[in-house]
């Protein structure tokens, strides 16, 4: 196992992972090698596809997904079944595309990577089901360019699946045609936004598109298009195989949401990594599974699901990690991979680092994001150097507010403003320390914009 794979390691033993409780990971090997076609088929692989083709109409598949309430695992939390049901289909509607969003680039997130590298057939099976449900005639896996191991796994799996008749014409005697192309991205975070992903795939600038029309109406090349995250699609085979009720029950005790979630932790903990747990598991359980804080330092704060989610405090550790609960705390579940910060770390620097990332990754389409984010970075840098000025915190408050939802073209800037806004709320003193005491000269000329003439 290479060092680079360190984070993306599943920390649950094979004995712990069972088909009925760990639909995403039970087939994974202890050695971390890719589950090939034979092994996948031997472990009940492609059974869901066969079953669906035999007994279910596309509408049935959509209905089951809807009932199961599989919420988008890329961070949005939108019901996949709902998305599928809103996708235009019909005799007059051209067949469109199924896009798998594998452009995993959220800071602190490495869950899709595990699935892509070690179990690509699960994704392919999920994509076949999604394509069948949505009348998609072609699929694309938009893969983060740096995921070279995943690309290798996917390429091999696609070849295997095609050779075995799981992709191509007339899949498994069903009359259904579908094939998948692997597309590796060129390295822009914004390509993870579904409409920017579509633009990028088409060869256009990776700017998001306005909605409506949603991709389900007019997506890639103007055709109805479904974009789902890797983990979301990987849930589909088990949902189809075992039913919506089973899926709901996986989390019944802990959350309204259904199924399991591939959670993870990184940061100042003893063992970072991934765990498949019922959705709604608490942050405390995760932290314990990670062996607690490293070096005995105290937990200062944590991000629940990536760089674009708001900071939470130690007191929030006992809350269920699901979409609604975390939302009510003013943050977002996001990708469900915790970033843990200890008492020695500077939140100001951490936020500056995040905002620098988000400013750099802005596509440059809308004004608040393109020009507002770099201003926050410069203000944060000034505060870091102790060169902040009075009014800077209020300006940051205003900027964070102006970068919020509906004011920007897409969710990029609102996501970027979440850690900033929450850090200003919870750790304001750290920011205030960056404001330089006003010098004598500055006091004398404290009204910017006016020319002061001294008359002697």
């Amino acid at each position, binding site marked *: 196992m290479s060092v680079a794979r360190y984070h993306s390691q599943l920390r649950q033993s094979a004995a712990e992972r069972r088909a009925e409780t760990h639909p995403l990971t039970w087939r994974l090997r202890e050695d971390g090698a890719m589950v090939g076609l034979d092994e996948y088929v031997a472990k009940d692989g492609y059974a869901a596809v066969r079953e669906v083709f035999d007994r279910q109409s596309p509408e049935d598949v959509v209905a089951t997904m809807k009932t199961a309430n599989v919420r988008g695992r890329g961070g949005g939390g939108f019901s996949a079944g709902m998305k599928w049901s809103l996708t235009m289909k019909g005799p007059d509607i051209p067949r469109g595309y199924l896009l798998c969003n594998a452009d995993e680039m959220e800071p602190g997130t490495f869950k899709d990577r595990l699935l892509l590298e070690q179990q690509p057939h699960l994704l392919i099976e999920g994509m076949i089901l999604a394509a069948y449900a949505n009348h998609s005639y072609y699929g694309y896996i938009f893969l983060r360019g740096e995921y070279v191991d995943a690309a290798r796994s996917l390429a091999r799996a696609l070849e295997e699946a095609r050779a075995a008749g799981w992709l191509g014409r007339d899949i498994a005697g069903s009359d259904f045609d579908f094939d998948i192309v692997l597309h590796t991205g060129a390295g*822009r975070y914004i390509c993870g936004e579904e409409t920017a992903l579509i633009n990028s795939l088409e060869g256009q*600038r990776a700017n998001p*598109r*306005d909605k*409506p*029309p949603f991709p389900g*109406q*007019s997506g890639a*090349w*103007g055709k109805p298009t479904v974009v789902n995250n890797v983990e979301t699609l990987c849930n589909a085979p088990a949902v189809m195989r075992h039913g919506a009720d089973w899926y709901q029950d996986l989390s019944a005790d802990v959350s309204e949401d259904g199924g399991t979630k591939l959670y993870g932790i990184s940061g100042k903990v003893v063992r970072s990594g991934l765990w498949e747990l019922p959705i709604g598991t608490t942050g405390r359980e995760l932290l314990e599974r990670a062996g607690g804080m490293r070096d005995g330092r105290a937990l200062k704060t944590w991000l629940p699901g990536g760089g674009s989610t708001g900071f939470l405090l130690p007191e929030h550790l006992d809350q269920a990690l699901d979409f609604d609960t975390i939302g009510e705390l003013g943050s977002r579940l996001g990708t469900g991979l915790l970033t843990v910060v200890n008492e020695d770390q500077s939140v100001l620097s951490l936020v500056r680092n995040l905002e620098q990332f988000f*400013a*750099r*990754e*802005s*596509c*440059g*389409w*809308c*004004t*608040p994001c*393109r*020009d*507002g*984010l*770099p*201003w926050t970075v*410069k203000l944060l840098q*000034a505060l870091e150097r102790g060169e902040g*000025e009075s009014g800077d915190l209020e*300006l940051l408050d*205003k900027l964070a507010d*102006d970068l919020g939802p*509906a*004011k*920007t*073209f897409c969710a990029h800037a609102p996501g970027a403003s979440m850690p900033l806004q929450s850090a200003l709320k919870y750790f304001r003193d750290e920011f205030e320390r960056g404001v330089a005491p006003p010098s004598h000269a500055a006091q004398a000329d404290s009204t*910017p*914009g006016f020319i002061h003439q001294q008359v002697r």
Partner: protein
Amino acid sequence: MATIHVDGRRYEVDGGDNLLAACLSLGLDVPYFCWHPSLGSVGACRQCAVKQYKDEDDTQGMLVMSCMTPSADGTRISIDDDEAREFRASVVEWLMINHPHDCPVCEEGGHCHLQDMTVMTGHDRRRYRFSKRTHRNQDLGPFIGHEMNRCITCYRCVRFYRDYAGGQDLGAFGANDNIYFGRHQDGVLESPFSGNLTEVCPTGVFTDQTHAERYTRKWDLQFAPSICHQCAMGCNISPGERYGELRRIENRYHGEVNRFFLCDRGRFGHGYVNRDDRPRLPEWRSDRDDACVTLEVDTALDHGADRLRSARRVIGIGSPRASLESNHQLRKLVGDDVFSTGIAATEQRCLAAMQALNHSCGLPTPTLREVEQHDAVFILGEDLIASAARLGLAVRQAAQARLEALAAERDIPSWNDAAVRTLGQNRYHPVFIAYPTATDLDDVTAARWALAPDDIARLGFAVAHEIDDKAPAVAGLDPAMQEAARDIAVRLMAAERPLVISGGSLGSEAILEAAGNVARALARRARRGGLLLVRREANSTGLAMMGGKPLEWALDELASRRADAVVILENDLYQRLPAAPIEAALAAAETVVVLDHQRTATWAWAHLGLPAASFAEADGTLVSLEGRAQRFFQVFDPAYLRPETRIRESWRWLHVLRADIQRHEVADITLDAVTRDCADAYPALSAIVAAAPDADSRVHGLKLAREPHRSSGRTAMRAHIDVNEPRVPQDPDSPFTFSMEGYNGYDRPREEVAFAWAPGWNSPQAWNKFTDEVGGHLRAGDPGVRLIAPHPGDHDYATVIPEGFRAREGEWQVVILPRLFGGEETSSRAAPILARAAPATLALTIDDATRLGVSDGDRMVIASHTGSLTLTVRRDATLPEGVVGVPAGCAPAPAAGEWARLTVSSAGGPGVEAHS
């Protein structure tokens, strides 16, 4: 219709628009950047945020971008809401973060949308205290200056350049706050519509380079409503003058013609007005061997009158680049029977055929705006971007209109530009082009055929026959052409509004008759279509309506000494016919009087040369190719800053010359009188009086100001001549004053607008204040009057169909290929156009080039019985076999349709050499 509520007031609006357009149409000010009436909405800049409320009880509301929100019935918004105001102030503050604040040295200053919007949103204090990003600028060629640091990243430039105008070589590069709009490397912007970037760009990134060296703020320019003289389109322009020089040309909004956009020939081709070598005083010599002397007006007129009075027979040669009034005055001077239009016979026959077809093909002539509403287009024998560029741009919009139709089926509003393009992809309304070589519209065509002129005609005749079998069939058509004809016919018949476009560019009457048959067939099959016929020059249409004899007749009269004197009006005959017959005729003439504003080869033959006013110094009426009579008004008085000049409108010269000949006391004359006289003389032109308000019209009791009310320097600009400020020049010919005094507002409807300005709106976006709705019509009606309409009833088909084209051994048929830059007489005398024009080349098929053993850059002599020409070879992969292409604007030899021989030139060196 829909009712919307804005800040508590009810308004009735067209519910199909977005809220921004609806508010602007209502006269409400909402700031914006990325939206444009012709480009639609993309929601990028976030400047037009307003507060929207769900219903009457909603007091919270939420911010929406007005450009991306439909103005649906019952919509409730607030523009004044505090949160919306504050957010809009934030947006401008962000946009100004990297802006250099270099207004004092920026050429956009004073007509800058960014300045206007910054003032409108109240951003007047800079809080950003960190470094700005900077860019390197590019050399984009002779037309466009580039200063990327001023960019506010609204994306309008690329959306216009690429999406609207089909350009490829301007793009958005980079990401985040480091977006760059430019070419992949320095170089001339290829689009023939690049000049519109100067108006589409809301700030000073793209500016008029031709204006840069002698720059004047908008508020210091003197404007008049004018008509572009650089082709027959009749685009409305706003030329601006300072210190007796034309400084720049801006688009003047006309709701049926050019609307927001001009071509680069029109915008940058005016430099001939400022040439130092222009005749500015009457020039006289009694004998051609004498040197010219300059004379005062009265003496010059007396000399001229004496000579003409004593002449046996005086003939007149008019001009399709001169106004109706000037041509009419010439015709009055010499008499109806001895007036030549100054147009070569072939072209005149084509013009006559076009004029007849406009009446007798059963289909109306659409306006430019209407062109965009046709859903299938068949173009025969025209490269529109070269011969009538603005029309080509309209055809591109017609093709792209299918995207909006497709989007409508999915409930995507037409203004949602990105969504419309996404859904529609490259599914266009069908455009078919038959032309000898590639054209700049090929990328939106359903199919195109590279054919010799006779084959273009045959294809057209075949299409007509496919549409209506009563139209004559084409004998011996090859199966591929038959198939093509069937396909075109089916697509034209499937359309709701098919449009046929043809014209005289290839000098082929057969093509015109074929286009006429297609139109007649469509009309007989009750299709609501249109026929648009392209003429070459600004007043070709008008002169054809006035009538007169072809130029060859005039030359023959002189050469055969049936006439011994000639008056030539604003016409360089060398542009029209080979030199030999012209020189034979002029040498034979006892008296040659030339009126022109350019020192042409023809001028050099004058005994009396009278310095004529160019369009910028004159008033007059032109008839555009859509049959619209339009008045152009004098921009400035050339004598104000150069008192020594004696430039006069040609119609004025000719009036006084006639009076002098007849020994009448010279009565003063006004434009209105000449126009009325002209209207009375020709029934076809009887409506031209109504083309514009007369000199007595007033708005609010005031004459109209040519200068903005902030105009400065009036008392100083003549101080080097005289410290006493003279009375401003008086204008008896128009309702305009040469002054800032007079009406310049927007709220009282008026047709003739010298410059667009409204309080708070200094940029070209001010036009939205003059229109009934954004992108609509001027509130007082669009200027001009249409003169042509189809006669009702079925019309007989043309029956003479040419034989199929056959390539010959050792001879090639010449096609003259129009050129946007360098292919037109007067604009070719403007330095920026000369710099932009591609070298004139001889287009040869690759096979022919191989056979002749020449390749690109070699020199060849093309010779016919009218003369010969040496040109550099350019191999053309599209041209049909047996045809050779000669660019327009070289010498007129050989002529279109002639058969010519080709030989490799022994002489070296680039350039064009004419031999006759």
